[in-house]
């Protein structure tokens, strides 16, 4: 009985498959892409025409900056997916 108990771990050792493969999570595409998109700027009461134009320009710029970040993440995902699939 005792011998049988001793044999169990030895036999179970055959079931162990140690696969020492380590893969780190891919790095994000830079610090800039990780910054969240800011809120759009609003107009102050009594704003002049130039203030309106300036605010619109700033908001457009924010949109394009945000679009660049989104595009970066989309590209990052697509490229990482291709690389990851190459592992299989």
């Amino acid at each position, binding site marked *: 009985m005792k011998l049988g108990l001793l044999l169990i771990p030895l036999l179970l050792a055959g079931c162990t498959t140690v696969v020492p493969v380590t893969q780190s999570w891919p790095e994000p595409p830079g610090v800039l892409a990780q910054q969240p998109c800011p809120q759009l700027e609003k107009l102050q009461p009594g*704003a002049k025409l130039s203030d309106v134009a300036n605010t619109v320009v700033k908001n457009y710029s924010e949109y394009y900056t945000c679009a660049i970040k989104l595009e970066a993440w989309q590209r990052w995902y697509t490229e*990482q997916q291709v690389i990851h699939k190459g592992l299989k």
Partner: protein
Amino acid sequence: MFWIFKFFPDWFWWLLLIAGLSGYFLSHLIPLKTYQLPIKIAGGTMVAAVIFILGLLYANGVWQQAAQELQAKVVIAEAKSQVVNEVIKERVVTKTQVVKQRGEATVEYITREVVKHNAGCVIPPEFINAHNRAAETPP
């Protein structure tokens, strides 16, 4: 637990296998029936155990080799990933810079040209409200 099997060199297990086989077959030559059966059982058990261990070591070797190949692929993939990230990073920086420059140029234009029309154009509060409503972050 596996280290127990790796503790002994490979030739040791082959030696045990030969010993087990020899014990099993040579037991037939022993004239005394009293010793014949225990030696036969011991030899057979030893052969079975050693075959199990040899199979275990072989399977482990195969797994180790596969793991090494996969690890090499992972290293290459990580390097590729770094290259891709650098390209994307540069792209983000360049494009952001372009957007910033264009914005600055437009602001400069507003300061130079649009300001002239400030006095002649009154912005109604409804317009400001409409703009601010559109600029509000959705919940």
